[in-house]
Each structure stands twice: as C-alpha cells, then as structure tokens.
C-alpha cells in the first residue's frame, strides 16, 4: 500500500531514495539526538538510532511499530551488525514521534509502519548509523590508549588493541565517543562478513511475550486513570441525536458520560463499570445520512459496474484486436467480502491531557499522522503531543488509519472530561468487528483469450472496489486519474507476458469505512489472476507451473520462487488418493512468494489444507527465522480469511459481532507449513505481508482440480 505513496508522491528510484534519505536522516540524527535519550541515558546519545550506555547496554531506537512482524529484532540486527555489538547487550526502545528524524524513507515525510517497508527503508540507514557509532567508539579508544585507530579491532561488543594487549567494552568508551565528531563517511561491511544479519538470532521480544510482561496499550496504568468505552451508532455515518445518561451514571464506578464525535463515551473507574454503564445508556441516533445498503445489494451494484468500462489502470496492445484474434475465450467473475482485521488486541490507547500537553500511549502505526490529528483535536501544537509507542497486539493495517480514528476518539474523550483524569479507551471485540475499516467488498470481472499456441493472447480485467485512499488526506497526492493504486496493485502489474492487456477500475462510493488489510490490493488481485491463469493452463492442457514459467519471461525472481516451491512440494508427483495440489505466485511489496497448497478433499466435498510449501525471495533475509515466521503467519492469516471470514451487512447493519460469527483460523485448521528462502544478495525487502496473497488462490486451484469446478467467491466455507 504505502509503496504507492512513495511511487506517486516522490517517484524516486529505490537506489536514490535510500541513498539520499539515509544520508539526510543520519546527519540530522547525529546533530539532533533525542532529548529523552539525553535525559535518561547514562551517556550522551551518539546518534538518533542508538544509545550506548556506560553500563555497556546498546539500545537501538526503533522508529517502527512492533506488531508481531519482528521488526524490533530486524532493525536491531542491522544496526548491531555494523556496530559489531554482542547480541546479548542489545535492547530496543521505540522512537518518539518525529517526522524529521524517524520518517519512513519509503513513505516520505511521515513516521509510520506499513507496506512491509520497515527493514526495506531502514537497511542502509541503520547500517550507516551502526558503522558511525562503531567508528566513534574506535576513535575514543584510540585516543584513550594513544594508538592509531587503524590498529583497533572490534568484535562482539569488545574493542581490542592487540599490539598493546589492551581491550575494553563499549560502555567504557561511550561517553568519550559521544563527544567526538560524527564521521562524514563510513565504510560498510562486505555482506560476506556479516555475523548477525542472515543468522538466526533470538527475537528481542520473546521473553517479555512469554511471561506476561510485554506492555501493550491495554496494559498501561497511570495514577488516577479511568477506562472509557464508546457507544457507537449501529449504522455507519449515523450520529447522536440525543441520549439519556441517567441510568448509565447510576452504575457504581461510572464517572462521566460524554458525547464525542463518534458516539457517547462512558468513562469509569474500571472496565466492568464502563461496560455496564454503556449497557445502561439510551442513545437515539440520527440515521438520515447513514449507509443503509446491505452487502447483497452492494454486490449487485458492483456486478453492474463490472459490465461497463472503467478507468484504465494499465494497458498494453489492443484488447479488442486480441480478443478478435484469440482462438477461445474465458470469462469469470469473482466476489470478495468485507474483512475485519480483528487483531487480538482490539483498538485502544491511553491519553493524558493537560492544557499544554497531550501524552498518548498506543501501539501506534502512524505516529506523526496521529500526532498531528491528536494535536488538532486537543487544540495543541503537534510538538506538544508526545506519543509513546508500545507493542501492538497485532494490527494487520488496522492501526494505520489516515484519520487516526481511535487516537482521535481517545483524545476527544479526554477533552470532553476536560483532562480530569488520564483515560484509557478500549474497544471491545464487538466494537472491533462492527467498527468498519474493512478490506473492501470487491468484485472482479476477468476475460481472457487463448491463442492457437494455448498461451494467453488477451486479458481484460475489471475491478470494482471502494477506494481506500478516497476521502483521506492522501487522496490528492495518491489517487491519479481516478486510479487508487491500492485497488489494482497485483493486477495492473501482472507479470505474465500477454500481448493485449487491459486493467480497468470502478471505485463506487459507499458509506462503509474501508482500509488497507494485510497485503491490501493483493488480497483480491492475486486471487482472481492466479485462479484465472491456472484455469487457462488447464484449458490449454498445460501444467500450471510450467505454463506460468513460460509466461514469466523477464521475471526471474517470480520464476525462481515458483520453481523452488514446486520442487520442494513434489509438484507433479503422484499424491495419495483424495489429495490435490494447487499453486500460486505473487509479488507484493517487492518480495516474491510462491506457495503450493496440498488439500485433502473428502467424499462429501469438505476439505482441509494439510500442507503448504512456500518459497520466498525477500532479498537478504535479515533474520531467516523471522522470515519463516512471517510466511507461516501470513499463510495462516490468508487462509483464515479464505476459509471462513466475512463481514456482511443487512440494511447497513453489520451482521457479525464476535469470534463466534466472525471465525478466524484455529490450530485445528492450521496446515503444516514449510518455508524455503531464496539465497540472495539483493537489498532486503519486506515479509510482513507478501506471504498472504498466494495462499487463497493456491487452495482454490487445488479445489478446482478436486471438484472439477472453479472457485468464484470467498470465503470458501459459507
């Protein structure tokens, strides 16, 4: 998703972006070390990304949110590598919100995490920061010992001068090093000599996350803190007409009942009192501007849109001529439901508001966007808003909201009670499932023609989906010629060689809030394209893997992951009775993933995904075990949606409310996942999202063979 922000807004080549961006941040970083770091550190901060304490701890400052994807571990590994630190001395701390020092170089002037860009945009930046800090430690040691810096070596957190048989740790030289000038240029390591990058270091957050000590926003406790829940409208865009707070206020522990833009907030001593207060609340809603269509009616409208030409998102050759010349044509329509992100930790934040400051604790995915939005609501300047980023209990995109919905709501409540107490806003699971910001309801129409050689001669693809960016501050910058790139990514850049090719888009206006959902447009584009290409292969009497390989000319990285996954899965070999394999390959966020799903199908048509073989090319694997974990998790998350997740609306009202009717994957449906990583010297790219797109089409392709009937809608179990 956010790679498009870069593409559209800045459009630099990746190389330029990394070079200039990294250099700028580094220089600024060295001159403007974080104030908090200065205040709290035993020794002054050598730069914005690392603080070395006199106690010999190395604290890496993470500008990205840790929401499960392993970014704290990845970012720290990169910096520690060039610093030559010992992994055991490394800690990670979240950076304060600051678009100058901590902007995402792949997003432009904002600090945020998304688009699987954390390691991608940080790689050079953190290598340089680590190398600079190392050089400063070496200089400090050389001065102290009165020896030439060139005679000093550093290894695993220790500094050596072999000639004089002296050595010391980082802590001994941290204070002196911080007083030295920052080297203008640093020499980075030959990747062949990496000792930490590419090695399977333990995650930095595992111990906290297995002992109950990891701190999420849900766990933040401040003196005098109250807990708030909000009664929100049953229909999207409905507003409060009036409310009667008497019964709610009568609930013991309820302190305030206040109206906020999103509804009525009940603020209480504890969660139970707040929930009981909300239950007792009577609210009358103004539904005159609400969205009242249901999903069945919307899909009917979407199908009609798909019968009409849309805005052209990509075009090659002449589609009409292609179809005229084609020997045989195929047409398919695909339906995709609204999906909730449903992270295990529902939305929450803690806000402490005073007349001159606003301090926020959140698993914050869009720090500087949220900082600006919070400032606007609080009536403060952005620099008066301090954001403490804590662990997020999952997000999958939900916590990166262009209008900062849950942050703004928390600040609005704090403001409505006039800063009387710090407020912890929590959403219940029902609030989460019914709260909107879904992966958009989507319909695809796809027509393809085969030439006499059995290869696709023409491909016309119409996508009908709500724009994620429309109506957000990003719209003006990122929606070009009616095309929201997040709606067509994965389809408009289809890698297969097809001479006549056209992708069109309809972006209907619907009053249901939508948002990027782990892998964004690829959640639906990978499905329709990979199901269609599989059907064309089978119609042409070709093996689906070989067929793809033939069409992937000039796309070596696609080819390599596809061939690797097929080989490791035993593609084409005889399977036990009732077992079927399906395959899919897709690039998302610059990483390439192929997956082979092995599905057992029973006589009654019920099925289970037994095994998934995944091959991934993400450039250098900074931590191969984290890469594997993200593929396992991405496959599980994608399979969860493919099997049984959907949000439906009836008369505008969301029909699901909790995990009994919005049903995520459980351990009983988790397949055995094998992950193979392509060895690469290319710069690392993301792994949080790219594992998701191929799994649904791979399973659907296996089912199509098993049932001799194509899959045309998700979820599969309805």
């Amino acid at each position, binding site marked *: 998703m956010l790679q498009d922000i870069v593409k559209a807004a800045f459009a630099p080549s990746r190389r330029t972006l990394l070079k200039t961006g990294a250099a700028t941040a580094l220089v600024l970083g060295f001159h403007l070390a974080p104030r908090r770091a200065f205040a709290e550190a035993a020794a002054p901060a050598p730069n914005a990304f690392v603080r070395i304490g006199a106690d010999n701890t190395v604290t890496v400052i993470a500008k990205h949110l840790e929401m499960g994807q392993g970014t704290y571990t990845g970012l720290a590994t990169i910096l520690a590598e060039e610093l030559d630190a010992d992994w055991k001395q490394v800690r990670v701390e979240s950076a304060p919100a600051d678009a100058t020092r901590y902007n995402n170089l792949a997003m432009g002037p904002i600090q945020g995490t998304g688009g699987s860009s954390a390691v991608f945009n940080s790689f050079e930046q953190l290598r340089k920061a680590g190398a600079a800090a190392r050089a400063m430690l070496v200089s400090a040691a050389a001065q102290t010992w009165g020896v030439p810096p060139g005679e000093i070596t550093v290894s695993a957190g220790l500094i050596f001068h072999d000639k004089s048989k002296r050595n010391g740790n980082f802590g001994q030289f941290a204070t002196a090093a911080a007083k030295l000038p920052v080297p203008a240029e640093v020499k980075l390591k030959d990747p062949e000599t990496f000792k930490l990058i590419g090695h399977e270091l*333990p995650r930095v957050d595992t111990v906290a996350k297995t002992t*109950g000590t990891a701190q*999420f926003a849900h766990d933040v406790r401040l003196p005098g803190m109250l807990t708030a829940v909000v009664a929100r409208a049953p229909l999207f865009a409905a507003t409060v007409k009036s409310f009667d707070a008497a019964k709610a206020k009568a609930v013991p522990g309820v302190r305030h009942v206040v109206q906020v833009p999103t509804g009525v907030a009940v603020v209480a001593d504890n969660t139970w009192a707040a929930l009981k207060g909300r239950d007792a609340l009577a609210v009358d809603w103004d539904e005159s501007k609400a969205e009242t269509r249901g999903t069945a009616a919307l899909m009917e409208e979407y199908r009609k849109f798909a019968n009409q030409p849309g805005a052209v998102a990509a075009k090659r050759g002449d589609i009409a001529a292609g179809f005229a010349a084609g020997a045989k044509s195929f047409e398919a329509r695909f339906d995709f439901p609204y999906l909730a992100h449903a992270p295990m930790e529902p939305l929450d934040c803690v806000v402490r508001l005073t007349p001159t400051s606003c301090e926020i604790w959140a698993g914050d995915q869009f720090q500087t966007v949220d900082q600006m939005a919070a400032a606007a609501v609080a009536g403060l300047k952005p620099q008066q808003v301090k954001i403490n980023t804590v662990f997020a209990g999952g997000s999958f995109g939900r916590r990166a909201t262009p209008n900062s919905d849950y942050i703004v709501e928390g600040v609005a409540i704090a403001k409505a009670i006039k800063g009387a107490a710090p407020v912890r806003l929590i959403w219940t699971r029902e609030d989460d499932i019914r709260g909107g910001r879904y992966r958009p309801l989507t319909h695809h129409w796809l027509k393809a023609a085969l030439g006499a050689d059995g290869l696709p001669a023409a491909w016309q693809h119409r996508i009908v989906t709500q724009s994620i960016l429309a109506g957000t501050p990003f719209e003006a910058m990122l929606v070009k010629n009616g095309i929201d790139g997040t709606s067509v990514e994965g389809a408009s850049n289809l890698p297969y060689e097809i001479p006549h090719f056209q992708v069109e888009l309809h972006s209907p206006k619907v009053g249901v809030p939508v948002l990027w959902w782990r892998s964004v447009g690829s959640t639906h584009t990978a499905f329709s394209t990979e199901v269609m290409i599989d059907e064309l292969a089978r119609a042409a009497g070709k093996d689906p893997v070989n067929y793809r390989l033939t069409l992937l000319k000039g796309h070596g990285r696609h080819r390599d992951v596809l061939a690797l996954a097929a080989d490791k899965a035993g593609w084409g070999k005889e399977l036990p009775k009732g077992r079927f394999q399906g395959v899919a390959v897709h690039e998302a966020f610059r990483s390439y993933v192929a997956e082979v799903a092995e599905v057992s199908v029973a006589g009654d048509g019920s099925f289970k995904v037994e095994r998934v073989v995944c091959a991934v090319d993400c450039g250098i694997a900074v931590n191969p075990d984290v890469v594997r974990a993200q593929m396992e*998790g991405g496959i599980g998350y994608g399979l969860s949606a493919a099997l049984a997740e959907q949000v439906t609306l009836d008369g505008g009202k969301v029909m699901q409310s909790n995990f009994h009717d919005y049903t995520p994957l459980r351990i009983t449906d988790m397949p055995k996942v094998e992950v193979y990583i392509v060895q690469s010297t290319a710069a690392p790219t993301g792994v949080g999202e790219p594992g998701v797109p191929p799994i649904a089409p791979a399973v659907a392709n296996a089912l199509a063979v098993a049932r001799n009937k194509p899959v045309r809608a998700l979820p599969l179990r309805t």
Partner: protein
Amino acid sequence: MAVSFTLNGKVVQLNVPDDMPLLWAIRDIAGLTGTKYGCGVSQCGACTVQVEGEPVRACSLAVGEAKGKKVVTIEGLASKPAKAVQTAWQKLDVPQCGYCQSGQIMSAAALLEKNPKPSDADIDGAMAGNICRCATYQRIRAAIHAAAKSLA
C-alpha cells in the same frame, strides 16, 4: 462487595461486585496485566487462567465464583510443566505480536500438567479454544511437543 481468593499463591481481597468477570478483577483491580482481553465471550482464550488447576476463561467467570479458590495467572506460573512450556516457547520464538500468548501458554501448561505426552489430537483438543491471529499455531504445536520431550 469484597471477594477473597488466592491469586498466584497469595490471598487477595478485592473490593468488587460479585458479578465482575474475574478477568477485569485481575487486570483492573489486582493490577496483573499479563492476562488479556480478546473477546469477552469465551471464544478466543486470551484470558485463560487456571482455577484450581483447570484452564478457565477469566472473561466469563464471575469473580464471585472464584471465592476461596486458587487462581493462577501467567505471572504466577511455577509448575515444572509450565516452566517447560515457557522455555520451549522461548526456544522456538513462538510469539509474534504476543498478545494471545499468555492464554496459549496457560492452556498448554494445563494440558501438560495432566497429559505429559500429548498427541497432535490432544493438542488440538486443548488448544482449539485459543485463537492466534498471527497464526503461530505451527510453532505452538511444536513447542508443546518440545516441552513434553524436555520433561520426559
């Protein structure tokens, strides 16, 4: 309005209404935040604690029902199987976001305390009530087997 029970080996007396779910009593009143809220209706298992050695969804048990009983949370895990579970979780780097893992570990510990050598089917039975949106299930299964092996 005072409820007394044993929390991680210590007798606590909480000034709460009897109908407050044990989850909120533990998190908001006793101040132990390792036990998580995920759904409030016994669907996800994030709030799993042990009451008299049995895994229980704290979101759906009124604190009054815990009166006089022994309640153990992630912070109080001490049995040998429980420690083996935590160690295996750490060795295999099971957690991703980590939010559900207290509940996963509480369920896994309860399983191993009763069944030192669980089969895959036993694991399915004991763990199917715990949702992990990061889908760390493969590692959860492997870690339970590894913990069982370490205890053998």
